[in-house]
């Protein structure tokens, strides 16, 4: 089956119905492995056990930015190729992205308290992630302000692309602005600067979070398609009556 076949919502529903159970199982297995590895990872010599917050915090931070990138691709799909499922994908990703951003902010605050002695500082990385969260909320607000889904999708797509300009700013904010947050240490020139005993569980957790996102996203897309069908049926019913 070619990828283009999935453009048909009915085929998409049938395909995801078959794939989702496997995805759920894979997510559960990788997440369990990741949690086990993270549990047995050595404590940091300075931070003690609090360093384990990282295994939640860092993957959700990656997803917070990654989901905006996914939505930007969907936005291109909506505006350029008029792909019928692109705005469904964008709409389904939005609340998930906002949730991961919130998780990142909250775990970051909880981690900051014992290590930095404060829940919140106006530091570059923290502030820019907060701005990202606000952008997610603005996008959701824009979507809920428009009645018709396909028009909402196109307007939201434009805003998503404009907002994508901020992604590199968030990525490089730790290098540009005054900061308490540590600079990039996993994805950087010259390889990761983390010992394998920490890096392996971290990457496993990242894989688990990624699978979790794919699962949630596909499920949310199914819901969105069904919701739109219900809406169309209601409209037809109303116009017939």
């Amino acid at each position, binding site marked *: 089956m070619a990828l283009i076949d999935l453009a048909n919502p009915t085929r998409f529903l049938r395909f995801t119905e078959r794939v989702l159970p496997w995805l759920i199982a894979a997510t559960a297995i990788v997440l369990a492995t990741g949690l086990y590895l993270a549990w047995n990872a050595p404590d940091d010599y300075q931070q003690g056990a609090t360093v384990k917050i990282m295994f939640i915090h860092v993957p959700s931070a990656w997803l917070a930015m990654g989901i905006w990138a996914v939505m930007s691709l969907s936005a291109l799909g909506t505006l350029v190729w008029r792909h019928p499922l692109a705005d469904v994908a964008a709409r389904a990703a939005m609340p998930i992205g906002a949730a991961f951003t919130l998780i990142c902010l909250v775990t970051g605050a909880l981690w900051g308290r014992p290590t930095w002695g404060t829940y919140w500082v106006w530091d570059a990385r923290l502030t820019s992630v907060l701005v990202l969260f*606000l952008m997610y909320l603005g996008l959701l607000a824009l979507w809920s*302000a428009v009645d018709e889904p396909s028009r909402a999708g196109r*307007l939201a797509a434009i805003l998503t692309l404009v907002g994508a300009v901020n992604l590199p700013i968030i990525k490089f904010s730790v290098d540009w602005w005054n900061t308490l947050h540590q600079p990039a240490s996993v994805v950087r020139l010259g390889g990761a600067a983390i010992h394998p005993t920490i890096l392996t569980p971290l990457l496993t957790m990242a894989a688990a979070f990624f699978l979790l996102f794919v699962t949630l996203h596909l499920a949310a897309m199914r819901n969105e398609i069904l919701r739109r069908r219900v809406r169309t049926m209601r409209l037809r019913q109303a116009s017939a009556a």
Partner: protein
Amino acid sequence: MSALLGRDFKLALRTGGGALMGVLFFLVLIALLPFAVGPDLPLLKRIGPAMLWLGALLASLLTLDRLFAADHDDGALDLMLMARTPLELSVIAKALAHWITSALPLVVATPLLGLMLNIEPAVSLHVALTLLAGTPALTLIGVIGAALSVTLRRGGLLLPILVLPLSVPVLIFGVAAATTPGEFGAPFLILLALSLVSLAAAPFAAAAALRQGME
């Protein structure tokens, strides 16, 4: 395009809205500041440039929601969509008219307000210069927001939520250029770059939003 520019210009000046309202709002905001933080002159001097920037940002938001909404109400926007002039150019003309009538008066008023906030003349000249360089970016980002929210009910409420997060970089580099002594050059150039980039991108985004919104 020049006709559109002239028309918006006249409308802004004669209807008693735009031009003066922005400056007045700016003045009120700056007048409220000493009530909020106390009339402590050294403190005001320290936070003054940042407050001027914040005031300019909020004042430029004030008139944005009417930018396309008025044209939408009286049907002029439909004519602009159908006209032979590319919509992108019309958007630039409207943005320019908005910038001249609402942002430029702020820049002119800045040294005077700087005086009230106990900012040294040289520093407030710096602030005015950074505002001159940065407000085009603010206006253009705002135009995107205005175009997105034009056909929505209560779009005026949505507008600041959409626009303000996007204007964070402009604010960062604007305040950096205005406040750090001896480090004027680099942030100022970035500020100019931000304005140029938004000039290159915003008209297309705004025109696309208008087309999608009006369908």
